[in-house]
């Protein structure tokens, strides 16, 4: 079963990837795929290894153009961040974007509720350090949630 599922997933990626890789910014699908990769590693290696590799900019699976994953627990404490390592260990549950949206709280709510989904907010783009509109796919992952977003 596992092998079958993996094969289907791999085939899907193989079909989609030529179109996406050509783009300047990562797409939503790529973002979801990155989340799945983190989930896969999380399942495979456990939280500590996953947090380390997510935060390590050298790991290419988790650092593709403007795409990077982030992991928080349900209290809003940042455990791993693909772009901004300064945030690791900080409680950002009260973090607001420029529109006043409590984005971390929404993510927690989303994770506790439907388990996954898309959330729009503003966030600094690591490529130019400009705060841009972002749409992130968030998915519950054990006691945590993991998300990857695209800048619009």
């Amino acid at each position: 079963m596992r092998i079958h599922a993996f094969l289907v997933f791999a085939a899907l990626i193989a079909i989609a990837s030529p179109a996406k890789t050509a783009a300047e910014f990562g797409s939503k699908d790529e973002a979801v795929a990155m989340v799945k990769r983190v989930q896969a590693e999380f399942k495979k290696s456990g939280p500590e290894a996953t947090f380390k590799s997510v935060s390590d900019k050298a790991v290419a699976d988790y650092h593709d153009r403007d795409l990077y994953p982030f992991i928080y627990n349900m209290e809003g404490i940042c455990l791993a961040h693909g772009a901004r390592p300064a945030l690791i260990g900080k409680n950002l549950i009260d973090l607001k974007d420029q529109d006043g949206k409590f984005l971390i709280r929404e993510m927690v709510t989303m994770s506790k509720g439907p388990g996954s989904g898309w959330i729009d907010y503003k966030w600094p783009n690591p490529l130019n350090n400009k705060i841009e509109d972002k749409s992130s796919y968030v998915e519950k992952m054990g006691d945590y949630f993991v998300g990857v977003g695209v800048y619009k």
Partner: protein
Amino acid sequence: MEDAAASQPPMAIYNSARGPRFLFGVLNNLSVQIKAAAASAVLLICLLALGANAYVTSTKSADGLRMLSHELEPKLQAFSQVNDAIVATHMTIFRYVSWASNGVSEKLLASLYKQINADLAALSTRIDQLSRRPDLSEEEKAALQALMAKWQKCLRQAKDTIDVGQTDAPMATMMLGQTDDSFKAVDSDIQMMSQATTEAANGVRAGLYADTERTKQFIILGTILGFIISAFVTFIVGASIVRPIKSITGVMQQLSAGKTDVEIGHRDRRDEIGKMAEAIDVFRKNMIEIRSMEQATHQAEQNRVAERTAAMHELAGEFEKSVQLIAKELADAVAAMHSNAQAMSLIAAETRDKSQSTAGTVIDTQTNVDSVANAAEELAHSIDQLAAQTHNARELTSKTVAESANASANVQQLLDAVSQIVPITGLIQAIAQKTNLLALNATIEAARAGTAGKGFAVVAAEVKSLAQQTAKATEEINQKITAVNASCGAVVAIMEQVVSAIGRLGEGTVEMATAVGQQAAATQEISKNAQQAADGSRIVANNIVELDKKARENDDASGQALAGAKRLLDQAAILQRQVDKFLRHVRAA
């Protein structure tokens, strides 16, 4: 005054319709002492009220001021300082993120980072100190507990922000939002508490101001009210004391001037003035009573005097009337007596004269009778009988005379004496007649005797002549006596006793005459009869002498009577004068 009204609320309700009059009624029944104290009491009450108010207000003000300066102001200052520090730190964090975003040197950033941490630590200490303040309320304590939690979060976020800012300025900028919120939350709490404290302080200030304002109003109002009330009370009390005292003084002056018909007011009051008025009224009533008693006594005295005077007058009148009557009667009687005495005196004089002449005649008769005596020896016996009878009569007459002398004084005696003469003369006359008859008989007998009787006839003739003379003399006497009797007509009434005595004598004489008459027939008894005649004539002579004596006595007596009557008249006049004088005195009294 207010006290008075308050002390009798039921009455006040009862008589509320009477209004001020009731107020005066209550006031009039209060003692002067209470009234005098009323004004001072009102002032005292006002003063106490003002003092109490000032004390309470100043105590309250002191408390308020102490609360402001010792509790609220320092607390507010602490809040303000915390607030200032929060704002300053907040600003510093902004400055840090700003510096970090604009690539200020690492050194400056590091320095600012240090300063922010120090500031945050100082702020923590400050907030901690604030939460430990002893003058916090429970609400403030609870609020500070909540603030502490918020502050902890704020502190963490601030530190996170600057930590992130050291390496990731855009993210620090991104985190400023939440730090802002946290700081605002803390600051808002601090400001709220500060606001609450400010409001509390404002409340205290407003309270102080209101208290002060109220105290000011109270003092003004209390002063004015106290002044008005005490002035009013003073006026009312003064009016209720001074006015009645003035009127009572006037009444007392009038009373002391002796005027009792004055109206004494204020007696229905129950205070000292009422009692005074009552006492004065008692004085007045006593004065009236004493006066009326004096008048009654005076009236009674006058009545008594008038009654006594009237009685005296009446008595005097009656006395005068009776005295005058008596005096008149006396005067009349005396006058009558006087005139009688005069008449009697005349009669007595006449009688004396007559008796003197009779005496002469009787002496003659005596001589004749003596001559006849022997011849009339027989007659003498009869005459002795007659003499005895006559003696009886004479005794009776004497007795009668004595009685009449005793009974009716000298007049009576005179009349008796006069009366005595009448029977005697009658007797003498009768004897003379009988002697005459005897002489006639003797003459006849002598004639019969013839010669032997010649001498006797001469004697008889002589006797007869003598008898006739005697009769004649006696007739004269009788005539004179009749004249006396006629003169004494007025006295006859008084002489009834004598008359009756004489009447009785007359009867005796009649008896005697009868006896003599019985003897008359006895011729033998002529001599005796002659002797009797002689004896009789002797008796007559004696009687005449006696009569003369009596007549003299009578004359004297009548003179005395006259003198007595005159004296009596004088005395009566004196008595009349004395009575008049006495009556004048009595009437004058």
